[in-house]
């Protein structure tokens, strides 16, 4: 799957309203609900699962990026939402730095390979020179979508 499929335009938040970790997670889970409306999808329950997972160890992996995630019974494929906080959010990241770019990933139960594939996709992108810098300086949703689209075009070559 492409970055643009995991994080479609409708599931991009260019400026998160939340200023803390829990709030940001809940905001993005709500976006998934609004965009995909998966069956039996309870925003509070899923957000709680993601937060519980964070307590086992932060998914803030450095570079100002976090990949909060959970497994969701009813899903058939990975769905996600992307949120940006220009102010930065304390995510207990491994490097102690605030997080600006949040990639929420929800995977089907038993879809271990799908989950790892989504992580691979995101990590390859954020490793790329300027990818995070461009996302951080993007003007809005359209800019962010363009960065995802351009990334896919570049890696295709």
């Amino acid at each position, binding site marked *: 799957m492409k970055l643009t499929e995991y994080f479609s335009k409708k599931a991009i938040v260019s400026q998160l309203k939340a200023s803390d970790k829990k709030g940001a997670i809940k905001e993005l889970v709500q976006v998934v609900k609004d965009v995909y409306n998966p069956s039996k999808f309870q925003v509070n329950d899923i957000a709680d699962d993601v937060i519980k997972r964070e307590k*086992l*160890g932060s*998914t803030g*992996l*450095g*570079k100002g*990026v976090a*990949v909060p*995630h959970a497994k969701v019974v009813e899903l058939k494929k990975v769905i996600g939402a992307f949120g940006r906080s220009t102010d930065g959010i304390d995510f207990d990241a*491994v490097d102690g730095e605030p997080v600006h770019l949040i990639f929420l990933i929800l995977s089907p139960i038993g879809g*271990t*390979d799908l*989950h*790892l*594939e989504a*992580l*691979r996709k995101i*990590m*390859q992108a*954020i*490793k790329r020179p300027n990818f995070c810098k461009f996302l951080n300086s993007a003007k809005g949703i359209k800019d962010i979508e363009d960065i995802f689209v351009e990334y896919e075009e570049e890696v295709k070559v």
Partner: protein
Amino acid sequence: MLFLSTVNYISFGKQMTEKQVKIVNRLGLHVRPATAFAQIAGKYKSNILVIKDGQTINAKSSIELLTLAAIEGTVLTIKADGDDAEEAANALVKLVESKFGEE
């Protein structure tokens, strides 16, 4: 035996070692294991690389480890180079074999 092979050699007075280890936890090398792996690797002075199917990455970066998308059954080669190479590689092999404390 999960421990597949070990190669030790001395190069310019420095220790180098290469070990293979199979991922045996059900969920593979996901975020928590990758973070633990990078943290342990980071405790050693040696340069440590992880190789999977010709892809070589820095063992001290969880972000790079996650680009491997290593599922259960994947064989990784750990290549360490430095004064504490042997110790570092052994610690990482042990971590993987212990299933990262998972099932």
